[in-house]
């Protein structure tokens, strides 16, 4: 099985919408809720799509805004205007 990537956010309304978007776009994602934070985990890779986040948030969203809610992450990052992907290359 592929190694897990994960990303963790501070709990907030915005991060709730981001996590919902991740769950919608990435089947097989699990959610680990800890005090004041939420960590989403998926084997191999995980993609945050701008459009899906906008649907769940109900407003425009710039993926670099992730910086505001992010706590930590693992995996190699590939970021464009439309998608933010974490993946292991193995």
């Amino acid at each position, binding site marked *: 099985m592929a*190694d897990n*990537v994960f990303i963790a956010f501070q709990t907030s309304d915005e991060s709730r919408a981001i996590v919902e978007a991740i769950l919608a776009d990435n089947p097989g994602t699990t959610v680990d809720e800890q005090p*004041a934070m939420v960590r989403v985990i998926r084997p191999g890779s995980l993609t945050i799509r701008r459009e899906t986040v906008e649907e769940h948030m109900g407003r425009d969203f710039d993926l670099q805004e992730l910086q*505001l809610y992010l*706590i930590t*992450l*693992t995996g190699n990052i590939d970021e464009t205007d439309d998608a933010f992907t974490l993946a292991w290359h193995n």
Partner: protein
Amino acid sequence: MDMPTTTKKKLGIKEKYALMTRGLDWETTYQPMDKVFPYAKFEGIKIHDWDKWEDPFRLTMDAYWKYQAEKERKLYAILDAFNQNNGHLGITDARYVNTLKLFLNGISPLEYMAHRGFAHVGRQFPGVGPRVACQMQSLDEMRHAQTQIHSMSNYNRYYNGFHSFPEMLQKVWYMSVPRSFFDDAYTSGPFEFMVAIGFSFEYVLTNLLFVPFVSGAAYNGDMGAMTFGFSAQSDEARHMTLGLECIRFMLEQDPDNIPIVQKWIDKWTWRGIRVLTLVAMMMDYMLPKKVMSWKEAWEIYFEENATALFNDLARYGIKMPDCAKQALIDKEHISHQAWATFYQYSAVSNFHGWLPSSEEMDWLSAKYPDTFDQYYRPRFEHWAKEAAEGRRFYNTTLPQLCQVCQIPMIFTEPTDPTQICYRESEFEGDKYHFCSDHCKNIFDDEPEKYVQAWLPVQQIYQGNCFMPDADPTKPDFNPIEEVLRYYNLQNGRDNMDYVGSEDEANFRAWRQTSTQN
């Protein structure tokens, strides 16, 4: 109302990053480039094309200012609200405040050192991409030092032990552990510094300090630490990405770089692991409400994470450091060994000690079924009995220290948890002592560097840790009291047991006044 829109095409993130981090440089003419960047080559790292460097976040200075400003506004709104509402009375128990004393004295000044370090290496890299990234990181680290000091200054108004942190980092015995870690990194070359801080400090260390520990701070009602911790770690996520990018960049530039990088990874993983002993103890013993055990945190944030990372780096020929095998064994022991040490030495520490309650010991037994009852519970129960009979045990003999990590020789043999692990090397006729094979290996590779270590125990014995007016020839000279005076530690107030301390009494009284008139 519809906002007016412009028809001008917005630059994509990749184009913007390329425009703002490339072509900003020039080849010098009246001085050779090697003199302009004097530290770029001595470590043996070969770089052929600096433009191959890419910041994975593609963060440009304008976006950086925008988001950092927003983070700061959020953070200070929370800090203000916490302070205005006497948030410190909402924490679970004032024992918790002792974790903050460790934090402010031992970690926050390192953030400042990181600020200086990145300002320095940012100047030394011949490539523009890493220079821009180092500049941002340098500013981030300054922000972390400031926000931590601001957040904890509120505690300084009410609790003891916060009053002299820059001085204590330089003087107090156990502070030489985190300080020497940073001094070691800071005095290396720019590439090694990136591995030391970008990889070890950010990926190995802060991920455990700022994620599970800070989640624990939130669980114990400290909104101040929660907000500075998570806000800092959001920057750290960028930093560790940068550290890993630097590692990949070196590996891709030249095959000759591989053994050098592997050596640094081995060294700094172990250096990071040893410093984390303090965090292990904070999680298992110092948080009144426990969020997860040190061992569990280690398994998620190091073992799982590092396995994935080293599987990823395997394509370059990089292997998991050997020391990870020992860390796998040590995770069952280090928090107990460290807390037992601080309990014995809390007369000379700037935070309070205490013994775990019977409920806390049951929690530890459940979390450490293979080690706690067998090796550590009897020790704590013995000390509890001694204290109950009026013989609270304070160790007054100064311990031997490891020459590299500077931790007292408290760790046990990986193959036998009843034997203290001792290693030694000879260099130029002198004998040096180590806590482990890995610290010994680090010394053996660069003995000229580590023989210079400022070891607090040796310094005390040499008489270098007394105030100028202290007179050791006087008949009533009390060396321990004189060392405390040198530390600027108020004997009987900042140190010794939590039970019976001013902090305990004040917290109880104030908490009552917060619910009554």
